[in-house]
Protein backbone atom coordinates (compact mmCIF):
# COMPACT_ATOMS: atom_id res chain seq x y z
CA UNK A 1 0.00 0.00 0.00
CA UNK A 2 1.33 3.46 -0.92
CA UNK A 3 1.02 6.17 1.67
CA UNK A 4 1.76 9.88 1.69
CA UNK A 5 2.33 12.13 4.70
CA UNK A 6 1.70 15.83 4.12
CA UNK A 7 2.76 18.40 6.68
CA UNK A 8 1.01 21.65 5.86
CA UNK A 9 3.61 23.60 7.85
CA UNK A 10 6.62 22.23 5.97
CA UNK A 11 5.15 21.14 2.61
CA UNK A 12 2.95 24.21 2.11
CA UNK A 13 3.29 27.04 4.64
CA UNK A 14 3.20 27.73 8.37
CA UNK A 15 0.90 30.67 7.47
CA UNK A 16 -2.12 29.20 5.69
CA UNK A 17 -4.75 31.83 5.05
CA UNK A 18 -7.54 32.59 2.63
CA UNK A 19 -9.80 30.66 0.32
CA UNK A 20 -8.90 31.45 -3.30
CA UNK A 21 -5.57 31.94 -5.02
CA UNK A 22 -5.98 35.69 -5.24
CA UNK A 23 -6.73 35.98 -1.50
CA UNK A 24 -3.08 35.76 -0.53
CA UNK A 25 0.06 33.66 -0.83
CA UNK A 26 -1.12 30.45 0.89
CA UNK A 27 -4.87 29.86 0.41
CA UNK A 28 -6.90 26.66 0.69
CA UNK A 29 -7.46 26.41 -3.05
CA UNK A 30 -3.72 26.30 -3.73
CA UNK A 31 -3.14 23.65 -1.07
CA UNK A 32 -5.92 21.48 -2.48
CA UNK A 33 -5.01 21.85 -6.15
CA UNK A 34 -1.23 21.69 -5.83
CA UNK A 35 -0.70 19.23 -3.00
CA UNK A 36 -3.72 17.45 -1.53
CA UNK A 37 -5.73 16.40 -4.57
CA UNK A 38 -2.67 15.12 -6.51
CA UNK A 39 -1.61 13.13 -3.45
CA UNK A 40 -5.05 11.53 -3.16
CA UNK A 41 -4.83 10.54 -6.82
CA UNK A 42 -1.33 9.12 -6.55
CA UNK A 43 -1.39 7.41 -3.17
CA UNK A 44 -3.74 4.94 -1.57
CA UNK A 45 -3.69 6.64 1.81
CA UNK A 46 -2.89 10.27 2.63
CA UNK A 47 -2.32 11.73 6.07
CA UNK A 48 -2.53 15.52 6.42
CA UNK A 49 -0.68 16.81 9.46
CA UNK A 50 -2.02 20.18 10.63
CA UNK A 51 0.41 20.75 13.48
CA UNK A 52 3.19 23.30 13.24
CA UNK A 53 1.17 26.00 11.52
CA UNK A 54 -0.18 29.17 13.09
CA UNK A 55 -3.75 27.98 12.60
CA UNK A 56 -6.51 27.76 10.02
CA UNK A 57 -9.51 29.94 9.32
CA UNK A 58 -12.73 28.32 8.18
CA UNK A 59 -12.28 29.64 4.63
CA UNK A 60 -8.98 27.82 4.20
CA UNK A 61 -10.25 24.54 5.64
CA UNK A 62 -13.55 24.60 3.76
CA UNK A 63 -11.94 25.32 0.41
CA UNK A 64 -9.11 22.82 0.90
CA UNK A 65 -11.22 19.91 2.13
CA UNK A 66 -14.83 20.67 1.17
CA UNK A 67 -13.43 21.43 -2.28
CA UNK A 68 -12.26 17.83 -2.61
CA UNK A 69 -15.92 16.90 -3.06
CA UNK A 70 -17.16 20.03 -4.79
CA UNK A 71 -14.29 20.73 -7.17
CA UNK A 72 -12.15 17.60 -7.44
CA UNK A 73 -14.89 14.98 -7.67
CA UNK A 74 -13.79 12.71 -4.84
CA UNK A 75 -16.51 10.75 -3.06
CA UNK A 76 -17.21 10.85 0.65
CA UNK A 77 -16.68 7.10 0.88
CA UNK A 78 -13.30 7.33 -0.80
CA UNK A 79 -12.17 10.19 1.45
CA UNK A 80 -13.27 8.38 4.59
CA UNK A 81 -11.20 5.39 3.60
CA UNK A 82 -8.09 7.15 2.34
CA UNK A 83 -7.81 10.57 3.96
CA UNK A 84 -6.54 10.87 7.52
CA UNK A 85 -6.25 14.08 9.52
CA UNK A 86 -3.63 14.50 12.22
CA UNK A 87 -3.96 17.46 14.56
CA UNK A 88 -3.33 18.21 18.20
CA UNK A 89 -6.45 20.39 18.03
CA UNK A 90 -9.35 18.02 17.71
CA UNK A 91 -11.70 20.79 16.65
CA UNK A 92 -9.88 21.13 13.32
CA UNK A 93 -10.44 17.50 12.44
CA UNK A 94 -14.12 17.74 13.37
CA UNK A 95 -14.54 20.86 11.28
CA UNK A 96 -12.79 19.35 8.27
CA UNK A 97 -15.08 16.34 8.22
CA UNK A 98 -18.03 18.67 8.79
CA UNK A 99 -17.08 20.71 5.72
CA UNK A 100 -16.68 17.53 3.68
CA UNK A 101 -20.10 16.28 4.81
CA UNK A 102 -21.66 19.66 4.01
CA UNK A 103 -20.09 19.64 0.55
CA UNK A 104 -21.72 16.30 -0.11
CA UNK A 105 -25.14 17.71 0.83
CA UNK A 106 -24.79 20.66 -1.54
Amino acid at each position, binding site marked *: MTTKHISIATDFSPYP*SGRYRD*DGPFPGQAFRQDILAPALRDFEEVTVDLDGTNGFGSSFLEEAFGGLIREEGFSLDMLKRRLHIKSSRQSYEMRIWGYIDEAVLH
Partner: protein
Amino acid sequence: MPTHESVVNWRYLTGTHAEGEKIANLLKSYQEQTSVAPPEGLYDVLNEALINVRHHAYPKDTLVPEDMRRWWLFARFNEPTDSRPGNLYIAVYDIGTGIQNSLRVKLQADEIVSKVKDELVKWLRLGRTYTLESLLLKRAVEHPRSSTGLPFRGLGLPEMRDFVLQTNTGRLYIISGAAQYSCLPADNVSDCISCNPAFPGTLILWSIPLERKELAS
Protein backbone atom coordinates in the same frame (compact mmCIF):
# COMPACT_ATOMS: atom_id res chain seq x y z
CA MET B 1 9.54 59.14 23.16
CA PRO B 2 6.24 57.91 24.61
CA THR B 3 6.62 55.29 27.32
CA HIS B 4 3.14 54.69 28.71
CA GLU B 5 1.91 51.18 28.01
CA SER B 6 -1.38 52.47 26.58
CA VAL B 7 0.68 54.11 23.83
CA VAL B 8 3.67 51.90 23.21
CA ASN B 9 1.74 48.64 23.23
CA TRP B 10 -0.27 49.48 20.12
CA ARG B 11 0.53 47.66 16.92
CA TYR B 12 -0.72 48.57 13.47
CA LEU B 13 -0.98 46.60 10.27
CA THR B 14 -2.62 47.27 6.93
CA GLY B 15 -3.00 45.34 3.72
CA THR B 16 -5.23 44.23 0.90
CA HIS B 17 -4.98 40.44 1.06
CA ALA B 18 -5.31 37.71 3.68
CA GLU B 19 -1.74 37.85 4.90
CA GLY B 20 -1.32 35.18 7.54
CA GLU B 21 2.37 35.87 8.09
CA LYS B 22 1.63 39.45 9.17
CA ILE B 23 -0.92 38.20 11.71
CA ALA B 24 1.43 35.50 12.98
CA ASN B 25 4.26 38.00 13.42
CA LEU B 26 1.98 40.38 15.30
CA LEU B 27 0.89 37.67 17.73
CA LYS B 28 4.48 36.50 18.07
CA SER B 29 5.63 40.02 18.96
CA TYR B 30 3.16 40.07 21.84
CA GLN B 31 4.06 36.59 22.97
CA GLU B 32 7.72 37.61 23.17
CA GLN B 33 6.78 40.23 25.76
CA THR B 34 4.78 37.97 28.03
CA SER B 35 4.32 34.42 29.20
CA VAL B 36 0.55 34.69 28.78
CA ALA B 37 -0.61 32.77 25.75
CA PRO B 38 -3.47 34.17 23.64
CA PRO B 39 -6.43 31.81 23.27
CA GLU B 40 -6.31 29.18 20.56
CA GLY B 41 -8.04 30.24 17.40
CA LEU B 42 -7.07 33.91 17.42
CA TYR B 43 -4.97 33.59 14.26
CA ASP B 44 -7.91 31.84 12.61
CA VAL B 45 -10.52 34.53 13.27
CA LEU B 46 -8.19 37.41 12.43
CA ASN B 47 -7.49 35.86 9.07
CA GLU B 48 -11.20 35.42 8.49
CA ALA B 49 -11.70 39.12 9.18
CA LEU B 50 -9.12 40.00 6.52
CA ILE B 51 -10.65 37.58 4.03
CA ASN B 52 -14.08 39.11 4.57
CA VAL B 53 -12.65 42.49 3.62
CA ARG B 54 -11.00 40.96 0.58
CA HIS B 55 -14.19 39.23 -0.61
CA HIS B 56 -16.98 41.61 0.37
CA ALA B 57 -15.98 45.10 1.46
CA TYR B 58 -15.16 46.62 -1.90
CA PRO B 59 -17.47 45.47 -4.70
CA LYS B 60 -16.64 46.25 -8.32
CA ASP B 61 -18.84 49.35 -8.32
CA THR B 62 -17.34 50.79 -5.13
CA LEU B 63 -16.60 54.49 -5.05
CA VAL B 64 -13.72 54.00 -2.62
CA PRO B 65 -10.42 55.02 -4.26
CA GLU B 66 -8.27 52.06 -5.18
CA ASP B 67 -5.48 52.83 -2.73
CA MET B 68 -8.02 52.88 0.13
CA ARG B 69 -9.52 49.46 -0.65
CA ARG B 70 -7.74 47.75 2.19
CA TRP B 71 -7.99 46.67 5.81
CA TRP B 72 -6.41 48.24 8.86
CA LEU B 73 -5.65 46.26 12.00
CA PHE B 74 -4.92 47.85 15.37
CA ALA B 75 -3.95 45.80 18.41
CA ARG B 76 -3.00 46.56 21.97
CA PHE B 77 -1.81 44.25 24.70
CA ASN B 78 -2.12 44.80 28.46
CA GLU B 79 0.00 42.51 30.60
CA PRO B 80 -2.01 40.95 33.45
CA THR B 81 -0.99 41.95 36.96
CA ASP B 82 -1.85 40.65 40.39
CA SER B 83 -4.63 43.23 40.62
CA ARG B 84 -6.18 43.05 37.16
CA PRO B 85 -6.47 40.65 34.25
CA GLY B 86 -4.70 41.43 31.02
CA ASN B 87 -6.37 42.09 27.73
CA LEU B 88 -5.65 41.89 24.08
CA TYR B 89 -7.67 44.40 22.06
CA ILE B 90 -7.77 43.87 18.34
CA ALA B 91 -9.70 45.95 15.83
CA VAL B 92 -10.04 45.31 12.12
CA TYR B 93 -11.47 48.13 10.04
CA ASP B 94 -12.41 48.65 6.43
CA ILE B 95 -14.02 51.61 4.74
CA GLY B 96 -16.11 49.43 2.46
CA THR B 97 -19.75 48.78 1.72
CA GLY B 98 -20.69 47.22 5.05
CA ILE B 99 -21.77 43.68 5.86
CA GLN B 100 -25.47 44.35 5.41
CA ASN B 101 -25.15 45.98 2.02
CA SER B 102 -23.45 42.91 0.65
CA LEU B 103 -26.40 40.80 1.89
CA ARG B 104 -29.23 43.00 0.60
CA VAL B 105 -29.20 41.34 -2.79
CA LYS B 106 -31.07 38.25 -1.58
CA LEU B 107 -33.52 39.16 1.18
CA GLN B 108 -35.67 36.58 2.93
CA ALA B 109 -39.40 37.17 3.46
CA ASP B 110 -39.23 38.64 6.97
CA GLU B 111 -36.30 40.82 5.89
CA ILE B 112 -38.41 42.29 3.12
CA VAL B 113 -41.03 43.12 5.77
CA SER B 114 -38.36 44.91 7.80
CA LYS B 115 -37.25 46.80 4.72
CA VAL B 116 -40.82 47.93 3.99
CA LYS B 117 -41.24 49.00 7.60
CA ASP B 118 -38.04 51.11 7.48
CA GLU B 119 -39.09 52.74 4.22
CA LEU B 120 -42.61 53.41 5.52
CA VAL B 121 -41.27 55.18 8.60
CA LYS B 122 -39.02 57.28 6.39
CA TRP B 123 -41.82 58.03 3.91
CA LEU B 124 -44.15 59.16 6.72
CA ARG B 125 -41.35 61.40 8.01
CA LEU B 126 -41.43 59.72 11.41
CA GLY B 127 -37.66 59.62 11.64
CA ARG B 128 -35.41 56.76 10.58
CA THR B 129 -35.41 53.13 11.65
CA TYR B 130 -32.83 50.54 10.74
CA THR B 131 -34.67 47.32 11.50
CA LEU B 132 -33.37 45.61 8.39
CA GLU B 133 -29.76 46.64 9.00
CA SER B 134 -29.84 45.16 12.51
CA LEU B 135 -31.57 41.99 11.38
CA LEU B 136 -29.12 41.35 8.55
CA LEU B 137 -26.06 41.95 10.70
CA LYS B 138 -27.30 39.70 13.49
CA ARG B 139 -28.08 36.91 11.05
CA ALA B 140 -24.75 37.23 9.27
CA VAL B 141 -22.92 36.81 12.59
CA GLU B 142 -25.04 34.06 14.09
CA HIS B 143 -25.62 31.88 11.02
CA PRO B 144 -23.43 31.08 8.03
CA ARG B 145 -24.69 33.30 5.24
CA SER B 146 -22.90 34.82 2.31
CA SER B 147 -23.71 37.49 -0.21
CA THR B 148 -22.58 34.99 -2.82
CA GLY B 149 -25.55 32.75 -2.01
CA LEU B 150 -23.12 29.82 -1.96
CA PRO B 151 -23.84 27.45 0.95
CA PHE B 152 -20.15 26.88 1.72
CA ARG B 153 -19.39 30.60 2.12
CA GLY B 154 -20.17 33.04 4.94
CA LEU B 155 -18.43 31.05 7.67
CA GLY B 156 -16.10 33.75 9.00
CA LEU B 157 -18.44 35.88 11.11
CA PRO B 158 -20.00 32.90 12.97
CA GLU B 159 -16.45 31.65 13.58
CA MET B 160 -15.56 35.00 15.19
CA ARG B 161 -18.57 34.74 17.50
CA ASP B 162 -17.80 31.12 18.43
CA PHE B 163 -14.24 32.15 19.28
CA VAL B 164 -15.42 34.81 21.74
CA LEU B 165 -18.02 32.51 23.27
CA GLN B 166 -15.20 30.08 24.10
CA THR B 167 -13.28 32.76 26.00
CA ASN B 168 -16.13 33.25 28.53
CA THR B 169 -15.16 36.83 29.42
CA GLY B 170 -14.13 38.04 25.98
CA ARG B 171 -16.13 40.56 24.00
CA LEU B 172 -16.88 41.00 20.33
CA TYR B 173 -18.33 44.12 18.76
CA ILE B 174 -19.13 44.47 15.08
CA ILE B 175 -20.19 47.89 13.89
CA SER B 176 -21.23 48.05 10.27
CA GLY B 177 -23.39 50.64 8.57
CA ALA B 178 -26.37 51.44 10.79
CA ALA B 179 -26.08 48.49 13.16
CA GLN B 180 -23.90 47.31 16.01
CA TYR B 181 -23.64 43.70 17.08
CA SER B 182 -22.37 42.83 20.56
CA CYS B 183 -21.44 39.45 21.96
CA LEU B 184 -20.55 39.45 25.67
CA PRO B 185 -20.64 35.88 26.95
CA ALA B 186 -20.05 36.85 30.57
CA ASP B 187 -23.22 38.97 30.55
CA ASN B 188 -25.11 36.53 28.35
CA VAL B 189 -25.53 39.30 25.79
CA SER B 190 -25.72 38.58 22.10
CA ASP B 191 -27.61 41.37 20.47
CA CYS B 192 -27.76 43.80 17.60
CA ILE B 193 -28.98 47.38 17.80
CA SER B 194 -29.37 50.21 15.35
CA CYS B 195 -26.82 52.98 15.34
CA ASN B 196 -27.52 56.36 13.88
CA PRO B 197 -25.76 57.98 12.09
CA ALA B 198 -24.54 55.04 10.11
CA PHE B 199 -20.93 54.00 10.55
CA PRO B 200 -18.71 54.30 7.46
CA GLY B 201 -17.51 50.79 6.72
CA THR B 202 -17.07 47.91 9.16
CA LEU B 203 -15.22 47.76 12.46
CA ILE B 204 -14.71 44.44 14.21
CA LEU B 205 -13.36 44.69 17.75
CA TRP B 206 -12.29 41.87 20.03
CA SER B 207 -11.43 42.22 23.68
CA ILE B 208 -9.75 39.02 24.73
CA PRO B 209 -9.01 38.35 28.39
CA LEU B 210 -5.53 37.20 29.36
CA GLU B 211 -5.73 35.89 32.89
CA ARG B 212 -2.81 34.90 35.06
CA LYS B 213 -4.30 31.43 35.28
CA GLU B 214 -3.46 31.12 31.58
CA LEU B 215 0.23 31.54 32.23
CA ALA B 216 2.13 29.20 30.03
CA SER B 217 4.23 26.64 31.83
